[in-house]
């Protein structure tokens, strides 16, 4: 089953205006750099973007905000991005903030065929809104619905032609759950290998969840908060 496409440009070519996208990563860690760059060049507009964060001014999803290509952002934390903050305060972008665990589980549920689930996160806060509530074991919960996307765009360390993926370090984060929840899932990998080269016991995302895969180029892997200790 050969799911390989040539590059990011080919992988994203049928992403149209107003598409719903999931974009993997936590901060700038484990983000699909090649596909984000290709989206910037494609000039696609009106995107609804589901991602834990909004990048920084000049990297990650921040590049798409600079060109006002995203109309709505669904995320858990959007700090450290001035362009984004200005767009948000000026009302040029709609923002839906979701507790991080609920965001992860809503993606997982979307991919797993579970339409909704109860969680205690956000009960009694403005997140509750008019969502149905129910008490289980004496504790109040709110009903959260599953999320899916037209395209899920993820970044892995290694992948094979069948779409099997292995992530490295905490660059795994939201990538596996988003990979499950895309109608079309695009995976960019640092190293594309032949089937059989990855040990099936250590696959994180089974290939069934992935429709397109390519080997990315020139990863910058920018560090947002470089923190070190003295020797």
């Amino acid at each position, binding site marked *: 089953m050969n799911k390989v496409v040539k590059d990011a440009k080919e992988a994203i070519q049928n992403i149209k205006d107003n598409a719903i996208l999931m974009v993997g990563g*936590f901060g*700038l*860690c484990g983000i699909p750099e090649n596909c984000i760059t290709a989206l910037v060049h494609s000039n696609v507009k009106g995107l609804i973007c589901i991602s834990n964060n909004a990048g920084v001014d000049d990297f990650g999803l921040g590049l798409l905000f600079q060109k006002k290509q995203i109309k709505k952002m669904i995320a858990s934390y959007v700090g450290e991005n001035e362009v984004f903050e200005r767009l948000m305060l000026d009302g040029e972008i709609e923002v839906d903030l979701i*507790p991080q665990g609920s*965001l992860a589980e809503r993606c997982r549920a979307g991919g797993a065929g579970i339409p909704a689930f109860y969680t205690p996160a956000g009960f009694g806060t403005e997140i509750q809104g008019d969502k149905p509530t129910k008490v289980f074991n004496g504790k109040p919960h709110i009903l959260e619905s599953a999320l899916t996307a037209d395209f899920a765009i993820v970044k892995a360390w290694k992948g094979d032609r069948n779409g099997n993926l292995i992530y490295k370090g*905490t660059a*795994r984060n939201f990538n596996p759950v988003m990979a499950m929840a895309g109608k079309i899932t695009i995976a960019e990998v640092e190293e594309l290998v032949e089937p059989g080269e990855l040990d099936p016991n250590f696959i*994180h995302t089974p290939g069934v969840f992935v429709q397109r895969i390519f080997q990315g180029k020139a990863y910058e892997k920018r560090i947002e908060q*470089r923190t070190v200790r003295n020797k």
Partner: protein
Amino acid sequence: MLDRKNIAKRIAQELKDGWYVNLGIGIPTLIVNYIPEDISIEFQSENGILGMGPFPYEDEEDADLINAGKQTITALSGASIFDSATSFAMIRGQHIDLTVLGAMEVSETGDIANWKIPGKMVKGMGGAMDLVASANNIIVATSHTNRNGKSKLLKKCTLPLTGLRCIKKIVTDLAVLDVVLGGFKLIERAPGVSVDEIKSATEGTLIIEGEIPEMKIN
């Protein structure tokens, strides 16, 4: 009055051998430096690691290894790495023994606000709402008053809530307090701080029973 380091030191005294602990951004991250030597603690960071180690040495940073504050970290031997849904399964499923996080406001009924100042700051709640809603054991690490000298320990929170009736213990620069039925129960005073000073810095109901001991900080 305690500085940030000493607040962290005092909270470190609460840790028990074998605990899995999640630390929020700010003062809580300092706690890793003061773990008693005779106990073993494993730190969880909600972006997907158990067994988080200290910051890397210079030139050994790995862009693929960060904590939830987006800082570069190391993984200790025996660490494990997982996706975000699994990470919050640990949190929601109450497999994490202790959560320590900061606050802008705490109410005398245990409500906490720490994610939004309407019209001024909207960064998002990150994992805080999931953590406070599910954790059995939460310690708030904070200054007793804000930058304008206003009490953070209130009858009722004024900012949008992060969680409802979830906080049971608070360690501030002035005191250790438990949230009990009826208000903030004063447990310990910071070295050199009087009960009256704590009283005047606390807007919510302060419960004082008997002699209040001074904290012991090494």
